[in-house]
């Protein structure tokens, strides 16, 4: 089944928190824990929104985003992306639809997700 949200995040506790917060709003959240295979995961599951961590093992979130935007399938390339950064630098996340710095406010996260999925 097509999930609402695919989250790519290697820190299990952060993933758990995000999933808990969003699932209480009724969103269905899938998880992928490694930078490698991130684009493949997006193209097979076709989520309505991707939450992408910037610091990932093997392949960074910025690289995944770049690959996604260059995908031949136009609707896949246009998948909205919410980038989670720990560094506070937004430069690497230019092509993201929205950026959320860690640590984040839970309500801010929910608001951003609602906005991005509706858009």
């Amino acid at each position, binding site marked *: 089944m097509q999930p609402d949200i695919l989250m790519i995040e290697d*820190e299990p506790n952060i993933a758990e928190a995000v999933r808990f917060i969003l699932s209480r709003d009724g969103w269905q959240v899938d998880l992928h824990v490694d930078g490698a295979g991130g684009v493949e995961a997006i193209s097979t599951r076709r989520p309505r929104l991707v939450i992408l961590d910037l610091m990932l093992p*093997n392949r960074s979130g910025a690289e995944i985003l770049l690959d996604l935007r260059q995908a031949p399938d136009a609707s896949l390339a246009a998948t909205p992306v919410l980038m989670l950064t720990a560094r506070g630098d937004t430069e690497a996340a230019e092509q993201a639809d929205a950026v959320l710095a*860690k640590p984040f406010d*839970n309500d801010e996260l929910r608001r951003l997700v609602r906005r991005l999925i509706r858009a």
Partner: protein
Amino acid sequence: MPFEALLATCLCYVALMFGVAYAADRAAAAGHVRWLDHPLVYTLSLSVYCSAWTFYGAVGYASRSGLEFATIYLGPTIVFTGAWWGLRRLVRVARMHHVTSVADLISARFGKSNRLAAIVTLIAVIASTPYIALQLQSVRLSFELFATSRPSENGALGNTAMWVAGGLALFTILFGTRNLAADERHHGVVTAIALEAVVKLAAFMALGVFVVWGLADGPVDMLRRIGDAAQDPRFAGGWVLQPDRWTALILVSGAAILTLPRMFQVMVVEAADEERLHVAGWAFPAYLFAMSLFVLPIAVMGAEILPPGANPDLYVLTLPAAAGQDLLALLVFLGGFSAATSMVVVCAIAVATMVSNHWLVPGWLALRRIPAGEGTDDLRGFVLNARRLAILAIMAAGWTYHQASGGAAALAAMGLVAFTGMAQVLPAMLGGLLWRGANRKGAYAGICTGFALWMALIFLPSVGMGGDLPVPAGVDPWTAAVALSLALNTAAFIGVSIFGFPDPVERLQGLSFVSAVEPIRHSRMARGDDRAEPLLAMARRVWGPDAALRYFQAEAQAQGKSGFLPDLTPRFLTALERRLAGSIGSATAHAMIDRVAGGVALTVSDLLQVADEAHRAKEETQRLEAARSELARTARQLREVNDKLTALSVQKDAFLGQISHELRTPMTSVRAFSEILKDSSLSDEERKKFAGIIHDEAGRLTRILDDLLDLSVLESGRAQLSVTAANLHDLIARALAAASATRPERSFVIDRDLPSEHLGVITDADRLLQVLINVIGNARKYCDAPYPALRIRVRRPDTGGAVIDIVDNGSGIDAGRQSLIFEKFSRLNDPAKAGGAGLGLAICKEIMETLGGSISYLPGQGGAAFRIVLPARPPVQQA
């Protein structure tokens, strides 16, 4: 004197020699070599030239042929009088190339050809075996003569030679193969030989004084008796001077002092430097003069007093015995015993070195085809064992020859036969040192010609096979054989050298030998660092791990590099090959290094050009070379510092980014879950779970902050140590237990050497424990072997303290990153696997420096390997 008493005296004397050798070796090992290195000890050790053949045989020689015996002393005297001019060059070249034997010298000069060395070794073995037999014979004869009561005809006495051979083999193995140091010196043996030289000389002089002043009526009376004897046709038929024979004898004995294996050993291999030839140049001829002074008086007096049938070769013993001087006779007996034993020991060491380096080791290498750098084969052990085996074999051969030949007559001439055999090496040796045009084919031709002629004309006739050279009447057959073999040898050497063309390696070695300067090596080009590690692994197997590491580190430092792996510059490779040659012979060392480092052959004309330029302007080249390498070193140091600074600045930025990431990650969880917890609709189970996560992440934050704080305290030098005495065994056990919490699901094989771990150390035990836990924990984390194992070895170096090696069996760390791992935040693998912030090894390094020790990465150990060095005491802290 009863047999038992005599035997006991001998045993005491031998025990004294063992004691002296042991004490000298101990002193040398402790670094007290000042008196061991005295030029007089060196000079006395040269007296190994005076074997039993000279000690007993000189008098017999004089009885038969009058003054002719003096030629045996004249040859070496002439050579040594010119020592400062000629021998110095030989010693310098040999030491520069770490030559281990006369065979090695020839091989090193002529293109590092092992075949040539193997042939010279063959001559040495053939010439030395009967010579050793002769020494055993002299000991047995003197025993038989001296022992008044014989236990049984074929009992202990009959086996004297065997016991002597066995005892000497034991001595030689104990003191001749203790180590495989690159310079191949044996302080123990040399010191014992020097002491024996004193005994020899004292005994002979005492007998001479007794003969001249005790039996004759002073020097005037003695001279009159000698004059009478010269007129007496019964005594010494050969007082006639034979210029051709004398010339040949002087030539051959002069050659012998250069080429006999035992002489080369004491004169060249055991020489610490060429300066001692200053003293030896006059002191050794003086020793020879003193040894020969009383030969004629003893011979004349022996013929006068002793019954006509007495063996003149034993006059030195029978004369004092007949005069009732038992103590003097015993002293002379010990002198003869010294002469025989010292010759056998040194000869066995020298020949065994040749046999193992030029026969056994190359054969083994060819059979095993060992891959360079890999494997656990202990080449060092093999070489030592090969040498021990060779010593046993040489002793056994000498003894067998002695048993088989039986009579004294067959052996008496063996001294001169051995001299002429080794003299066949002389043309190639002198030619190699003096003439750049000499080449390998010429050396082959000359040595093989000389060897064949010597076998046919001198050696085989001397053992009763074949006849003397058919010569016209009035010509001495021995002189003719010597002249013919040496002349054809030299002619073949020069002729073939002129028409043959040397290969490039040879050409450069030739230049180096003739001008006695360091050659410029271009045959092997420097390559990347990746070959340095296999070379280190190879060197470790020859010298042992510590010596090899020390050498490589020193070389790297000389190049201005940190760490253990120097660049493979031609200069480094040449130096390494020379040092290895000192342990395993130049041909083998050359082959082994080539196998690892690979060779790029240049054209012959390239090399000749290089060689000629170097020769013409060698001073200029050396000066420029020195200046250039100094500049290059400075530049390299600057570059390294600059690189490091740039890297540090990049690292500092990365450090801040990293720290931000490391701190934000746990904070994110804490903040998100604490917000969730505020919601009252949670179940108890969820509440509990989320509180647990907050607790864990808070702990992680604390750990990171602790590490940072720890590091900053250590770096600022404000860390307070609490120094106590601790047992390393306990610390390692605690560290292993603590580290087992890291990836507990993986079973780890721990290899420890428990007895050696019980070392007391004085240090801050908690800090040391922190380092141990970190290193062991890292191994548990990162070791990627399917069956991970950890080896821990502890030992105490001479300087006190402790050295702890911790080695796993994973794939280790790339050479390029080895110098980075002790920097902050330099976590190499993926961050998810590590629990900390990448500060562990940086903290370890700071701790070890605070404790006055060090922690370093050991390359070439198979897996990741760390060496922790702890000083005897931590440095005193400033309050």
